[in-house]
């Protein structure tokens, strides 16, 4: 039985080795397939890669959110950013028409008062959280509770590009929200906590590395910490992520402190150095 098996294997091997055409098909066809697929893929991506995705941007907000998204899209290599159509400043109508005509793959429209609406909501939220009541002074009735950013899509645009653009937008919105939240929060805290002399900062630093028990946050801040964390968990993932390590590991080592500090925004650093 083994003799027959061995003879068959030997024969098949010899047949395969000597079949030049068969061998070349066996190895060259997959290579040709890869080559063809690569060329097809390349040509498909080429229109996107040379200049990026043609995007028309309509900024009706003219505030933090609009500016940040504009800057972000301008600096993104993936996007061929335009805020004008045929020499005219882009408007919602023009953008919709241009995308419909295939001049742009994606159109992004930031509504008027988007930043103001975010600011209003964040201020209200922070005030409620810190004071237990709505003390926000600015209550413009015309500002909506939600911000609706419109994205006009050419059906030709690939889903992956759209996902990329929308995820970028989400990132910008989240960043703006966080900034506004920090700013508002900082302002509110500054009102609650009285100004301390500069020498107290030095005193705190001296105790950090030597005595864990002695390293305590100022009383007003400790009191407000549960509330702070609650706010942060609910309204901004980046904030609790930055704060919690501080609370847990604050006095453990100098090295850890540095690592934690390095991740904070200036605003947050201001709070901790208080």
């Amino acid at each position, binding site marked *: 039985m083994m*003799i*027959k098996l*061995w*003879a*068959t294997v*030997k*024969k098949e091997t*010899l*047949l395969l080795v*000597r*079949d030049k055409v068969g061998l070349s098909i066996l190895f060259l066809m997959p290579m040709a397939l890869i080559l063809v697929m690569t060329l097809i893929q390349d040509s498909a991506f080429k229109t996107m890669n040379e200049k990026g995705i043609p995007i028309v941007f309509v900024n009706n907000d003219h505030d933090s959110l609009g500016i940040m998204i504009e800057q972000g899209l301008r600096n993104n290599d993936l996007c061929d950013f335009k805020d004008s159509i045929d020499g005219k400043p882009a408007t919602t109508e023009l953008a919709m028409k241009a995308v419909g005509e295939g001049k742009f793959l994606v159109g992004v429209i930031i509504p008027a008062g988007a930043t103001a609406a975010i600011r209003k909501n964040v201020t209200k939220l922070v005030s409620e959280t810190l004071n237990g009541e709505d003390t926000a002074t600015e209550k413009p009735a015309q500002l909506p509770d939600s911000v609706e950013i419109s994205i006009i899509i050419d059906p030709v645009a690939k889903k992956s590009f759209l996902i990329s653009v929308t995820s970028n937008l989400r990132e910008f919105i989240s960043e703006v929200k966080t900034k506004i939240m920090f700013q508002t929060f900082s302002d509110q805290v500054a009102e609650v906590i009285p100004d301390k002399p500069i020498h107290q900062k030095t005193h705190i630093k001296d105790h950090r590395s030597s005595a864990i028990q002695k390293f305590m946050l100022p009383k007003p801040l400790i009191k407000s910490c549960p509330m702070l964390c609650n706010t942060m968990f609910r309204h901004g993932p980046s904030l609790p992520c930055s704060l919690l390590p501080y609370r847990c590991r604050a006095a453990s080592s100098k090295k850890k402190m540095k690592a934690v500090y390095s991740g904070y925004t200036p605003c947050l650093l201001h709070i901790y150095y208080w």
Partner: protein
Amino acid sequence: MSNPAIIEIRNLTKTFKGANEPAVDGISFSIKRNEIFGLLGPNGAGKTTTISILCGLFPPTGGKVFIDGKDLHTEMLAIKNMIGVVPQDIALYPTLSARENLAFYGSMYGLHGKELKNNMDIWLEKLGLTDASKRQVSTYSGGMKRRVNLIAGVLHKPSILFLDEPTVGVDVQSRNVIIECLKEINAAGTTIIYTSHHMEEAQNFCTRVSIIDRGKIITEGTPGELIRNNAGSTNLENVFLNLTNRKLRD
């Protein structure tokens, strides 16, 4: 002491699927040990079908076949080891050399090592293929391919050898060598069952012939007997034409 039959065929029938008429229609004959039995007939007479059934390539629709006392239906494996087949078409791998082809076929019959090599050397020498034995078969002439085809069937020294038109399409020299070799094999004790369209060759080579037409045996006997029994016939070809008529076949 009478020579016993090595092959016994009783009422053998084969009807292919979709065919209106049977390819083999209830034939019965026996082949004695050490005979050179010629199965002659025009195209489509049922010669190749009969040989294919005897080799176990496909089962009969009806009838019984006994080879060396063994039922073909129940003892196929034992029978396969004692038979050799030289098919009508060249059954060789063209990109392999004659030696590589023969080594493969020899191995399929259980030959290996020195025995396989010795047998190959002997047969290649006998059929004048030693010098060309390492060349690829695709470079061979028709006669050379036929000779290698023959060696592939006899390499394992079978006791029964089936030859389906072994000399078709070869030159006189090659045919002569092949016939001489077959006679030698027969002299060594191998029973040969042979089909051919060459009546002169069959007349000289076969000890007994059977003429088959439309799936039926129409006559059987030694070439001399058949010539004598058919008035006006001077050779086997005359007998064949008289019995199968001169009408062209498909």
